[in-house]
Structure formats: structure tokens, C-alpha cells
């Protein structure tokens, strides 16, 4: 399957040039850029691993593309996304978020149902990836995958 999280997941995967354009838009708006990765793409997983700190005051998207490529190289089978943070008062949240890398095979999710009183059911989504421990979740993954930084 193909998880459709992020702002552009219904479009074909963005080329590096298109990624640079989007990052340029974020920089022009004064947003800092963060790169995050995960092997557990559950929709309620709010905290993917940070690939280093968010980048503030970086004027050239090329610098950020270098980091994206480094992250892809270190973790080719992880989901990687780019987040832009808007610090303006009253907003102070993410302004744009899109996926720039996916594992080759995405096993997706299982819906678990728990019958409770009456006809009601309690639902839980379970990601198949999380059946295996961290580091072994996708094919061809090294066991020492962590942040890959430093």
C-alpha cells in the first residue's frame, strides 16, 4: 500500500528539484526546516526521530537537500519527511509537512476490533511494521540504524 500522510502524498513522489522549490517557499516565509524519519508510520505517531535539529536561518535550500540526501543514504528504508515550523504568535506550529522518502515495500496497517457492550466496537490501528523490533522493520535494514548523525 502507500500511506498518504503529508501534504503531497497523492502526487507522484517529488523530484529533488520540486523538493528544493517547496523548501525555498518555506525559507521565504521565514520558517525553520526540520527533517524527521521513522520506521513506524502509525498515524498517531507524532514523534518521528529528528535527523539533527531543525535548521534555522539557512538561506539556501541546497543546504537542506544535502541533509535529506544524507538521511536517505543512512536510512534508505525509512519514511523521511520534511517539516516547516512557523513561529508566529497565534500559529506556532507546523506550516508544511511532506514525505521525501519511503521504504520500498509498505506493509501498511491492520484494523483491530474489540467488541464491547451492545453493538459498539473499539478500534485500534496496528502497523505491520511494528511487529518487528526497531531496526529490523523493513527489508535490507541494518541493525545499527539510529539517527545516523554524529
Amino acid at each position, binding site marked *: *500500500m502507500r*500511506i*498518504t*500522510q503529508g*501534504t*503531497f*502524498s*497523492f*502526487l*507522484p513522489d517529488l523530484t529533488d528539484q*520540486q523538493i528544493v*522549490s*517547496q523548501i525555498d*517557499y518555506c525559507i521565504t516565509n521565514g520558517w525553520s526546516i526540520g527533517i524527521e524519519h521513522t520506521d513506524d*508510520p*502509525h*498515524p*498517531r505517531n*507524532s514523534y518521528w526521530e529528528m535527523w539533527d535539529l531543525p535548521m534555522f536561518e539557512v538561506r539556501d535550500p541546497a543546504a537542506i537537500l544535502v541533509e535529506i540526501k544524507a538521511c536517505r543514504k543512512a536510512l534508505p528504508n525509512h519514511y523521511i519527511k520534511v517539516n*516547516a515550523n512557523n513561529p508566529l*504568535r*497565534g*500559529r*506556532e*506550529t*507546523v*506550516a*508544511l*509537512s*511532506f514525505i521525501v522518502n519511503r521504504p520500498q515495500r509498505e506493509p*501498511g*496497517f*491492520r*484494523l483491530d476490533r474489540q467488541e464491547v457492550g451492545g*453493538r*459498539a*466496537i*473499539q*478500534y485500534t*490501528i496496528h502497523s505491520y511494521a511494528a511487529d518487528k523490533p526497531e531496526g529490523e522493520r523493513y527489508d535490507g535494514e541494518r541493525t545499527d540504524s539510529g539517527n545516523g548523525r554524529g
Partner: protein
Amino acid sequence: MRTTLSSNERYRAGVIPYAKMGYWEPDYIPKDTDVLALFRVTPQDGVDPIEAAAAVAGESSTATWTVVWTDRLTACEVYRAKAYRVDAVPNSPGQYFAYIAYDMDLFEEGSIANLTASIIGNVFGFKAIKALRLEDMRIPVAYLKTFQGPATGIVVERERLDKFGRPLLGATIKPKLGLSGKNYGRVVYEALRGGLDFTKDDENINSQPFMRWSERFLFGMEAVNRAAAATGEIKGHYFNVTAGTMEDMYERAEFAKELGSIIIMIDLVVGYTAIQSMAKWARRNDMILHLHRAGNSAYARQKNHGMNFRVICKWMRMAGVDHLHAGTVVGKLEGDPLMVRGFYDTLREPHTAARLENGLFFEQDWASLRMVMPVASGGIHAGQMHQLLHYLGEDVILQFGGGTIGHPAGIQAGATANRVAVEAIIQARNEGRDYLKEGPEILERAARWCSPLRGALETWKDVTFNYESTDTADFVPVATPTY
């Protein structure tokens, strides 16, 4: 005209013009803590506009048709509303804008019911006035702080859905009435699976013989969760919990919460008090609260009489809803672009300046009350995506009921078409393209690889709704509002 009389003259039994009773004060400077209201007054023939304005001020505060000695037991100068300015409406002979100031103590804290009962409770039937419309209000920060404001707000909603940087997409389930629970859930599943973020009950879907509410909730949540698992996204369906009594409403809302829904909806017709109660409940239970503005056009649409929708926008933001239908500009329902811009800014901005061309008569500071997500719903389709983004911006929910369910290749295809269209236009906008002008071309290009979008464009490309708006600006715009 002289303003107030000496107390001897003022309190002698009898009838005195309102303007001399202290309700007309042209030198009055409104305090920061005053509630201000702007009425469009059409006095009866022969009635002086200032007297009419003073009468409105009087009848919406302390006056009655004759002098009463008991006034003198009170600090009546404080409690009297003051009409402080009357302007003729441009190009509309016989109509006047009346500005009225109310002391904050006239109103109970945190009560929309009291605010409205005070301001519009009495005046609209007043014989001396042929027609009356409440155009706008300025709510002071001090009074705003007594309200909860939106339970969730745009920022938190986006964080809960984990969806940023694009409008959200929804669809009202069609046909409006008649589907059974299971069939209803089928439509929900297909639409969410295909790519929409939300689906929605219609305003009159409550609990009827063809489908009771709990059947809808049960089948609906199955559909929502199936779609979430299939896509990896957080999805929602607005379950309408409107009912005959508050007790029933709470029961339905609790059930929706128990089943794990992230959002519920209510209709404007439940009344201001019920809306505030539900907003409080929603905040306590981490539920997004959607409000359908059912019935507002009955009193909001005619320019000379009623209540302008922007006042409803203000009250609903104070009351605490998270979503509010506010117009589409290019769809099938009434909505002049300048006026709609005024509504959207009222809902979404932390602070709006007075802009007469958008119908914003007062500067309004929202005192950090959260932002309401406007909802655009009614006769819109994927082929208009560039116009929708241009007029309405990014923080909006675009609802394509017919535009999803009526797609020739099926509901999922309809949903996918809308989703691809919005993402493509957003991508182009971020890249710096003139997406309004190049919109059709951008959509065409996407349609080449996305056959659902191709189908949508083919089916609806000639659909427009071009009728004269009934509610338009009185003032000429100085610049066209765009995002």
C-alpha cells in the same frame, strides 16, 4: 439637536423623544471596554434618523416608551446605550448606519444568549423603524476573555489530524435523506478511502425513521476506521448530535466519543445556549465541534433587514465552535467575494482592522481566542480548485458533496480527484506560479496521469453559478482581497 435635558425636564412623567432622554450622545467617545453595535436603520417616513437611532439604542438597553421615575434609583447614565454616530448609507436613500455603544456591565459574562437578548431582543419589531439590520459588532477584549472561544481551533485541529499546508477536504453524504445506516457508512468509507479528510452528516440528519442516530454512528465509525487503516491517515466523520433536548444531545455526543470519533457537529438551530454548552463539552472531551449554519439565511440574506452573517461569525467564535460554514464565493449558495472575505477574516484572524469594503466596520482584537476553521460547502467541484484557494486561502475545509459522490467513476474516484486537485494547486502555488491564471492548465496536467481528475473535469467543466449577490458591499474596494 440638544442632547440630554436637565433632570427636572428629563424625569417629568410623559413621553420624551429618545434623543433627549440621553440615548443620543454625539460627543461620546466609546471606551475600550464598551460593546459597540452597528445597525442599518430604515426609519419610517417622517421619523428623524437620529431619533430612530436613539430609539434603537434605547430599546436595546434601558428605555421604555414613557418616562419612569424608577430610573432615578439607578446609575442610569451608565446603563443607557449611547447612539454616538449616524451616517447615511452610500447610494441608499432612507437608510442610515447607527453606531451604538453599550457599557460592558449590561451583559452577563460568558453568555451569548444574554448578549443577543440584550442587543436584538426588543428592537426589531419597533414600529418607528421600517427595517433594521444588525451589521457588525465590536466586542471588547475584556468581554471576550469571559468566553471559552473555539474548543479546538485551527492549530490544534491540524496537529491532531497531522495535516498541514493545504485545505482540508470533506463531503456531505448524499442523498440528504433516506439512506439506511449500513448504506450510509458505505458512502463514508468510499469517500474517505478515496482521499477526503472528512465526511459529514447533513444538517437535517438527526434521528429519523429511515435511520436512527446510533445506527449511523456505529456504521459510520466502522467506515472511518477502515479508511484510516487503509490510508494511514487520521479520518473523521462529523456526527450530527442535534436533538430535541440537551440531554439527548449529550447522550449522542458521549456515544460518539465512546466510539472514538474525533469530531461531532451541531446545527445553529439548537440555539446559542446549547451551542455554548456543546462547546464546553467539546473542549472537555477533546472533540472538534463543527457547526452548520442552518437557517441563518432566513435572516441574514436581505440587505435591509435582519442580521448580517458576520455577526453570527463573531458570536460563534466566542461561543466556541471549531468549524463554521462561511461561504464559497464560486458555489451554488449566496456569497459575494468581498463579504465572504470579511466572514473568513472574522473567523480566522487574531486581529482584524476595520475594512469597509469587506463589511468590517470595527477594528476587532480577538484576545487570543482560537481560530475557527471556515467551511466552504455547496456546489463546488475540483475544476474550481484554483479559484477556491485564491478566494478562501489555505485554512479552510472544502466540501464537495455532489462533487465527490456524483463522479461518474464512483465515490473513491471523486474523492481522489479532489485530493489530487488540491495538492497540485498547492504545489504550484508554493513554487511561485500564478496558480489563479494557470489553474486550469495545472489541473489539466495533473489529469493526464490521474484519470479520476480527468473524469471530474470532463463532467463538471461548464458548471458555474452566476447570479447577482443579494448581500453586497456598500463601499468600494480599495484593493482586491487575495491570499
